[in-house]
């Protein structure tokens, strides 16, 4: 029986090593992240199996040594030679003790380092974006991991069962690793299968979970090593090996949780809950329940619900057999029947010429001169080519500006899938093709129109033409889509020259302002001229009236003066003369030259003064000064 234990240990070791190597090769072949974590675990299992097998060999040697000593003692009687407790007499025992004292803790430290290092390296490795399962290699790898899981499961179950026997305790660590390895191989297979059912991230998340598991194992090993230092050594009491992980044991035999739970329940309730029929049923039929779950899972793939606005293509062994409308449908279970969903009623949108920018989208005002998204420049035709000198270059070369202009457009395109079979099977990436076709039509259209035309009066016409042209291209390539809307929502010169376009608008307004100013001035000038003309004619009318009336009055006066003059001509003349003289000279400065006793020279400055000054003021003459 004891020999069988050692043989079982060796079988476990060989199986662990071989499956570890095979799993590692398959992992590299399929590039599975979860497979890498699983390989690390299997490698650790191989090391543990080796340590367990080696310790079994030492214990077996010790047992044989004791038997031989006892045999000799019985044959030769009591002898001082064989009653000695010296270690030299029991080299196998001594070797086993040395092994447990030095190698086992050292091996525990090694395991801790490998587990922690493996967890850390794997965590960093799976973070690299280029990693992932190769889809074309998934199926054989999936099958191989399934086989590994099956082999490990059978061997692990067997080992776990016999490890419960007396003196088979050293088989338990490797058995737990094998059984847990079986589950991890199965999990890895699930991760690889995720790629085939369009859930490639499953592999990634499983790899992360395995990293966590390795980290927990490292933490447990560290704790065990620390506790091992303070563990009371009781002679004759067999200690649990450091490398026998309780966590792995729990992972390998989750049903042991039932035992633990049953014990806890028994303690809490005060009676044997674990002996009730329900608990017994649950414990005995757990595999059946798991199998039933799997069957239910498989049967659930026979029913499919299509949401409103969607259609599904049903494939039976890869051959399309129909299109499923919204509602509940029955189908054969996976993998015989598969469905592929498409949003057919939903209006889908893509953008041409710009990439929406979340920050710019919040702006309330959209200006040409302020970039409101990540915009592209399109070439448009230009009717008047001009050659200008490039002032930015260091050389004096004259760069020829091609007869084109640049324009920025923002064109949202909305479409709907009308023929789901054509959409699914004509092109591998129909949405991308639709975008390419639409962009091509936009580029083509803009290349044949003038910048100013398309920005102004041709806008609506351009949107309509573009929609028709894109639809024609879609029909030509049998994409099975309908173009619902093409909008020229934003079309303007690039931001760099948009300011100059705004200046043109400003100049046009300035022109209008100047014309309006001139019109206002014309109105004022004409109005003033009219008023002046009116005044002139009125003055003339007044003059005419004055002349007429004045002449009549003068004639009447003259008629009355004739008798007076005739009566006393000289007196009348003198009287009129002096009246007129007095009136006329009243305001004039008068100099009267009389004969004096001095020879005076009077100098008259008869020049006009340029401006008035104080000297021109009429100062009342002083009584002390007499006129000359």
């Amino acid at each position: 029986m004891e020999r069988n234990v050692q043989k079982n240990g060796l079988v476990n070791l060989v199986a662990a090593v071989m499956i570890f190597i095979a799993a590692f090769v398959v992992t590299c072949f399929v590039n599975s992240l979860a497979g890498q974590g699983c390989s690390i675990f299997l490698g650790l299992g191989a090391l543990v199996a080796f340590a367990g097998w080696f310790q079994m060999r030492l214990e077996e040697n010790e047992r044989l040594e004791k038997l031989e000593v006892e045999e000799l003692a019985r044959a030769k009687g009591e002898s001082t030679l064989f009653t000695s407790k010296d270690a030299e007499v029991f080299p196998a025992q001594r070797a086993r003790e040395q092994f447990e004292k030095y190698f086992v803790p050292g091996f525990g430290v090694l395991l801790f380092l490998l587990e922690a290092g493996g967890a850390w390296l794997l965590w960093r490795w799976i973070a690299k974006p280029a990693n992932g399962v190769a889809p074309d290699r998934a199926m054989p790898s999936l099958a191989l991991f399934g086989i590994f899981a099956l082999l490990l499961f059978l061997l692990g179950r067997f080992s776990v069962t016999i490890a419960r026997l007396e003196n088979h305790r050293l088989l338990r660590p490797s058995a737990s690793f094998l059984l847990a390895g079986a589950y991890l191989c199965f999990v890895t297979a699930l991760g690889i299968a995720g790629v085939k059912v369009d859930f490639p991230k499953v592999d990634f998340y499983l790899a992360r979970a395995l990293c966590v598991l390795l980290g927990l194992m490292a933490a447990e090993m560290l704790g065990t090593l620390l506790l091992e230092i303070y563990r009371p050594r009781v002679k004759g009491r067999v200690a649990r090996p450091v490398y026998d992980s309780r966590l792995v044991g729990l992972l390998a035999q989750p049903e042991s949780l039932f035992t633990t739970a049953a014990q806890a329940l028994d303690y809490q309730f005060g009676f044997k809950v674990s002996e009730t029929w329900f608990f017994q049923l649950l414990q005995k039929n757990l595999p059946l329940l798991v199998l039933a779950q799997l069957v239910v899972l498989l049967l659930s793939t026979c029913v499919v619900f299509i949401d409103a606005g969607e259609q599904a293509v049903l494939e039976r062994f890869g051959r399309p057999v129909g299109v499923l409308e919204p509602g509940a449908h029955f189908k054969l279970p996976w993998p015989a029947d598969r469905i592929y969903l498409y949003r057919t009623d939903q209006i889908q949108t893509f953008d041409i010429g710009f990439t929406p920018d979340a920050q710019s989208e919040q702006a309330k005002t959209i200006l040409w001169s302020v970039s409101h998204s990540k915009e592209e420049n399109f070439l448009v035709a230009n009717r008047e080519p001009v050659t200008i000198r490039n002032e930015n270059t260091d050389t004096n070369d004259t760069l020829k500006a091609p007869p084109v202009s640049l324009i920025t457009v923002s064109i949202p395109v909305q479409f709907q899938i009308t023929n789901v079979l054509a959409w699914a099977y004509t092109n591998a990436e129909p949405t991308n093709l639709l975008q390419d076709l639409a962009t091509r039509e936009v580029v083509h259209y803009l290349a044949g129109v003038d910048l100013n035309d398309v920005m102004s009066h041709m806008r609506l016409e351009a949107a309509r033409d573009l929609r028709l042209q894109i639809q024609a291209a879609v029909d030509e390539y049998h994409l099975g889509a309908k173009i619902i809307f093409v909008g020229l929502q934003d079309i303007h010169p690039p931001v760099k020259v948009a300011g100059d376009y705004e200046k043109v608008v400003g100049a046009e307004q300035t022109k209008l302002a100047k014309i309006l100013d001139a019109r206002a001035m014309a109105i004022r000038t004409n109005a003033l001229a009219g008023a002046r003309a009116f005044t002139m004619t009125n003055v003339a009318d007044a003059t005419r009236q004055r002349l007429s009336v004045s002449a009549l009055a003068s004639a009447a006066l003259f008629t009355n003066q004739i008798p007076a003059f005739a009566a006393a001509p000289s007196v009348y003349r003198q009287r009129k003369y002096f009246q007129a003289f007095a009136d006329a000279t009243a305001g004039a400065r008068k100099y009267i030259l009389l004969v004096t006793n001095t020879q005076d020279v009077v100098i008259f400055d008869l020049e006009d003064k340029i401006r008035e000054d104080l000297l021109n003021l009429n100062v009342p003459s002083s009584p002390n000064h007499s006129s000359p």
Partner: protein
Amino acid sequence: MKRNAMTVVIGTVLIVIFALLLFVFQVRQSEVAVVTTFGRPTRNLTEPGAYCKWPWPVEKVYKFDQRVQNFEDRFSQNLTADNNNLLVMVYVGWKITDAKAFFPKFAGGSTLAAQSMLESMLRSAKSAVVGKHPLADFVNADAKQLKFNAIENEIEQAVQSQLQTNNCGIGIAFLGIKKLGLPENVTQTVFQRMTSERQILISQFEFEGEAEAQKIRSAAERQAAETIANADAAATRIRGEGEAEAAKVLPVFQQNPELENFLLRIGALQQSLNQRATLIFDERTPPFDLFQHLPTNAPSR
């Protein structure tokens, strides 16, 4: 015992599932498959359905998407026939026409390798075709002068002929120009030219406005002058009429011309002295002749 039987059932089910996975595979409507036996292509499956095979490593299945696949090449610079630099990007739809021929030529049927080769061919063909056409074939205010379709056909034909020559097992389904552009340096000159064009328009508007305003002002001034001239003429006429009216009473003055003459002179004297005047009289001028006999300090003669 019952538990062992259950374990055996579960194990058997798992074995059946894994065996099915190893021996059976599906080909979808959108796929084409090549089966290799010890590495040598032996079967070419183009119809959808479930097929059997020997497990790896005896037989291995390579599946390819037989739908049209798209890719776009890089936005690369080319020289047109009239020496303009033009950036052109094209998109290509290609599909696997012969999986058996396709599979060995591209490292186990790698579509990425096929696209890489296709891109090299495409860039070469694109440069050659663009070099044969002037810029006006790509961008023209007269849409009828554009040769987009012809250029696309020429590039497609050039790539297609190379693919057929090499028997790559792939064919071009369609090809189109996706993007046109100019190098950054040339783009700056275009921006400058666009700015200059705007400047021309700005000047045009400004001076047109000035000229128009000047015309309006001039017309207004002319009209005002005309109005004033007309008014002046009317005023002159009216004044003449007044003078004519006044002249009607002249015969009255003719009754005593001497008196009228005297009165006119007096009137003229009054009017002439209305302004500032300085008068110098001697003692003989009436009424200052009153000073003649006053005593003075003149020396006796």
